């Protein structure tokens, strides 16, 4: 090309970013990397390696150690040894370390950006302008949390040793999202980068060590899926944080079930991108570029489902197609491109297959007639229009530069289409009418909503999903709690097993009998006979029959869930209204305090004084959550933009509650009250041995203006009913207190729809201890934080 030719054509020439320093770094390591364990690079015990390649050319970049059991053991041992001293450091000392890491990232920003672009295949623009600056910001922000930990999280302690498994789409940014909060709050880490993209994690470990991070605090074990499994299943790891596919997330949930490992899962999505007819159409078109052609669409929160209001759809599509024609796909280190390479041939193939299926199912394919580089894994920006909700491309995450599109008629229909998915990660809403945009944002089932924007991230605002997009948040105060646990729960001990009393035969006499009372189930605001029409005895500790309760079965649970789902108005009731009702329940319980105390004493053998204390504590607890109902508020995050991110705690939806065997009234109220205070509807399985306090309680509910379906009670076998609740796909969360087996079962079966779980692993809570048994620790678990980003300006 000559100046004259460029002058005539006015085309963009090549504009390569130099990779000299990156290649030199690889050469210094002789193209071969070990694990980073206890402050030094070590080869795999097995001597095995795997290769990481350059997606843009397919060429070999480096040989990487393949982590086996011995390597993971060594890393965990190093992390365990370091955790105590690391946690004991004053917050200010950890803050200095985190600050040093942030500065170190900034000093080596270009090297990190270039290595990342080469290894992942994404454009240098994105690594340089987005990934690396956001990562540095994450370390700065969390240096701050380390500094403030002693005052802001005084009632919490670090979780301990954390295993973190991160994906290949944002290798360095995900490292920062995982490592920064974990280290800041006093945990130590075993990090496994994705097999396609291990290089920046190794570079980071090397730089972190040079920046003075103590040995063992951060360990990097490289490998494939099996290495990840070794970490997930390691007995001496306290928490697993995973970002990746929903499929693998489900496996991790199953494999960690019952181990007591805390778990954060940030999984897939099929996030809606909703364009209303009053949107800035050109702005929205550009939004699509950032939504689905950012990082070649390999973004878990990619706006991959475009929903356009019918009236503007033709104009929108016309402009979108025109814009697609001006996108440039090129080599990752080209500084004049919009898209670069897909991470690996296998991913490219998956994209091609899914698009072919979508087209076979009737979608109209649009791809611009632009050139793609030859040789590597490249795929053009793609739009599929006329996609029906039944098509595989409308439901499956493609994880490539492919947007699917359909139209809607009304805001209501937009919300319905948007929420009609198993995922719930992110959403983007485009409208210039504030009332419409915010109303829709509030109703979307997503952890993050961007108004007139897309793919905005910041360390100060929590990121994470609902439903099968996983649980837990990364970033902000809400993200810190994922790496902490309440101090008050540290002393909990395994529940002592209580032998079932032997049944004493009833011997009738000639005294005036009491009137027979039939305890029923309580479903949808009505007393209901159990579906199977079987009942079970309720015995006193001495074996005397105190009464009978219904033997609930799976159909009763089904009915209760239907009733709870139908009571969705409770979730949008005013907080004042919910507070009033909680106080009213307390008032009505108080009026029958003696009766409940007698019942508790009869069932549990508690002394009259202790039984009375349980009732009084129950009344107080209802007051506590009546108090919280209109005070458990969100936050206004201030990410670096002209606007705000509203962090709003939202009800989970329908929550199953399997009550602990002990404290038949207080245990139930301690779990139900925070849930309904925050707008959830519950299906309660009362204390299995002592269910009569719960069946008495429904008459209190009936007199307390609790709307039908908000609290449903199904008596019976805790473990059997928990099974149905845990595997029920229309139950959003399950709280289960009781035996270790119950916890294991609940966590395992919850993997189906990845419902949030709250279990005690068989450890008994002292329900009379306010520190351990009430407050924000419960409210946080009763809610998901939704972050609504609202940039503004005219």
């Amino acid at each position, binding site marked *: 090309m000559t100046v004259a030719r460029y002058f005539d*054509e006015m085309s963009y020439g090549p504009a390569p970013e130099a990779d000299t320093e990156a290649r030199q770094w690889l050469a210094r390591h002789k193209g071969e990397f070990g694990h980073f364990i206890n402050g030094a690079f070590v080869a795999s015990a097995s001597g095995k390696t795997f290769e990481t390649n350059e997606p843009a050319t397919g060429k070999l970049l480096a040989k990487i150690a393949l982590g086996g059991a011995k390597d993971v053991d060594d890393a965990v041992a190093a992390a365990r040894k370091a955790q105590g001293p690391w946690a004991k450091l004053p917050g200010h000392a950890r803050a200095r370390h985190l600050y040093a890491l942030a500065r170190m990232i900034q000093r080596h920003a270009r090297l990190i950006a270039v290595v990342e672009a080469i290894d992942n295949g994404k454009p240098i623009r994105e690594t340089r302008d987005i990934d690396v600056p956001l990562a540095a910001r994450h370390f700065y922000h969390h240096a701050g949390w380390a500094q403030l930990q002693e005052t802001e999280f005084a009632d919490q302690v670090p979780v301990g040793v954390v295993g973190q498994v991160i994906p290949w789409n944002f290798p360095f940014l995900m490292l920062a999202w995982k490592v920064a909060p974990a280290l800041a709050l006093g945990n130590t880490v075993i990090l496994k980068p994705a097999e396609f993209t291990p290089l920046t994690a190794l570079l980071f470990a090397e730089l972190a060590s040079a920046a003075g991070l103590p040995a063992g605090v951060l360990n990097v074990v490289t490998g494939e899926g099996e290495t990840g499994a070794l970490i997930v299943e390691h007995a001496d790891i306290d928490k697993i944080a995973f970002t990746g596919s929903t499929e693998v997330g489900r496996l991790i949930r199953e494999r960690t079930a019952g181990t007591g490992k805390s778990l954060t899962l940030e999984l897939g999505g099929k996030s809606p991108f909703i364009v209303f007819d009053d949107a*800035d159409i*050109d702005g929205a078109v550009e939004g699509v570029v950032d939504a689905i052609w950012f990082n070649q669409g390999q973004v878990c929160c990619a706006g991959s489902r475009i929903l356009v209001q019918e009236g503007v759809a033709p104009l929108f599509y016309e402009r979108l197609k025109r814009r697609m024609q001006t996108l440039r796909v090129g080599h990752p280190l080209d500084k004049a491109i919009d898209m670069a390479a897909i991470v690996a041939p296998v991913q490219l193939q998956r994209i091609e297959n899914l698009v072919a299926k979508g087209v076979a199912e009737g979608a109209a394919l649009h791809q611009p007639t632009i050139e793609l580089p030859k040789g590597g894994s490249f795929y053009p920006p793609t739009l599929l229009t006329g996609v029906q909700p039944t098509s595989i491309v409308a439901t499956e995450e493609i994880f490539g530069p492919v947007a699917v599109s359909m139209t809607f008629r009304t805001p209501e229909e937009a919300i319905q289409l948007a929420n009609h998915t198993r995922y719930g990660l992110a959403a983007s809403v485009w409208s210039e009418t504030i009332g419409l945009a915010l109303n829709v944002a509030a109703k979307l089932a997503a952890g993050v909503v961007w108004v007139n924007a897309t793919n905005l991230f910041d360390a100060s605002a929590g990121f994470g999903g609902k439903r099968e997009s996983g649980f837990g948040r990364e970033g902000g105060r809400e993200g810190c709690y994922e790496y902490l646990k309440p101090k008050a729960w540290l002393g909990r001990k395994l529940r002592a097993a209580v032998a079932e009393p032997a049944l004493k035969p009833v011997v009738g006499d000639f005294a005036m009998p009491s009137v027979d009372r039939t305890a029923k189930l309580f479903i949808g605001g009505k007393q209901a006979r159990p579906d199977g029409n079987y009942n079970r005895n309720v015995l006193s500790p001495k074996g005397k029959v105190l009464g009978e309760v219904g033997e609930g079965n799976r159909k009763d649970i089904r009915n209760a869930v239907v009733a709870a789902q139908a009571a969705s108005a409770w979730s949008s009731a005013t907080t004042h209204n919910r507070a009033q009702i909680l106080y009213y329940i307390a008032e009505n319980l108080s009026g029958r305090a003696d009766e409940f105390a007698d019942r508790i004493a009869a069932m549990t053998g508690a002394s009259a004084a202790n039984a009375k204390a349980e009732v009084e504590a129950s009344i107080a607890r209802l007051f506590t959550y009546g108090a919280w109902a209109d005070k458990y508020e969100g936050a206004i995050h201030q990410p670096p933009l002209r606007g705000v991110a509203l962090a709003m705690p939202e009800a989970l939806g329908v929550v199953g509650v399997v009550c602990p065997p002990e404290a038949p009234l207080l245990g139930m109220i301690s779990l139900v009250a925070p849930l309904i205070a925050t707008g959830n509807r519950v299906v309660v399985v009362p204390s299995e041995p002592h269910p009569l306090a719960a069946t008495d309680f429904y008459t209190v509910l009936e007199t307390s203006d609790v709307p039908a379906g908000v609290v449903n009670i199904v008596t019976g076998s805790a473990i059997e009913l928990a099974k149905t609740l845990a595997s029920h796909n229309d139950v959003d969360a399950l709280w289960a207190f009781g035996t270790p087996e119950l916890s294991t079962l609940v966590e395992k079966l919850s993997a189906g729809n990845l419902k949030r779980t709250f279990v005690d692993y068989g450890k008994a809570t002292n329900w009379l201890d306010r520190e351990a048994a009430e407050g924000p620790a419960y409210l946080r678990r009763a809610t998901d934080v939704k972050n609504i980003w609202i940039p503004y300006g005219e």
Partner: protein
Amino acid sequence: MEDLAVKTGASKVAQSPAAGHNWPRNNGIDLDFGWVLDQRVNLSAAERRVATLPGRRTVKKDAQAAWLLKAVTCIDLTTLNGDDTTERVKRLCAKARQPVRQDLLDAMGMGGRGITTGAVCVYHRFVSTAVEALDGSGIPVAAVSTGFPAGLIPHDVKLREIEASVADGAKEIDIVITREHVLTGNWQALYDEMRDFRTACGDAHVKAILATGDLKTLRNVARASLVCMMAGADFIKTSTGKEGVNATLLVTLVMLRMIRAYQERTGLKVGYKPAGGISAAKDILNYQFLMKDELGREWLEPDLFRIGASSLLADIERQLEHHVTGAYSALNRHPIG
């Protein structure tokens, strides 16, 4: 890699004279209030597009030299100062004829291309001087008009000023709109005013200066752009150079999108002229990237793109010398304009 727009646009524009007008002229359409009021611009979204542009597009080496030379051909080399004199204007015209040193053009293989600026832009008083000084060069003279820069003289006087400049040989008239019409939402008045200006221009092409720095909001910019095009503007132009804020990439984005919307509906291509505040070579490249990506290849040529600038040329000359020699240049190595 080259994109399609290049291939389809290349043959047509290659033949175009430096400042010719090769597209059907925009004769305007009836004022469409609904369309005007329908315009919405989200500030944050627009800012994001502009902020990420320099990371998405760049040109290096030969390509950069070519793009900068192309920018030279689009410059309305301008002097609009109270101390302008005929000799000052003649000097400017000489620079317009030979904006880049011949030895540099030769070194780039562009010596025979007749590189000139797009036009020379002066006040009415100096139109005849400039016309004479540019005789035979094909470089048109543009006159700022209608009570430039505030535009607050009587309407009939504005029309007489246009007619006088056209009579003196101006081929292009840069008018200023009455900002009050925009700020008060009086779209009919804006439309009528612009229509009269257009009629008064006759065969001379008219550039409508919106004075975006006075209009403040992007919504106002979008609406004013649309109304001026409906009333027959050949170009829409950002600024007089005298407002507090002149050309920015942000208002450029909005105005380009309006030009595109107008083309979508009418098939007509309207030109764009940013003016004021563009003095660095690297800045003008970003405008060119936006022109190409938002509107297309055709909008990089002087018949649809002009740059109102006085000091930009000097920086481009330095960059071109650096490209040719590899050494950083100095202002005094290039003839003054």
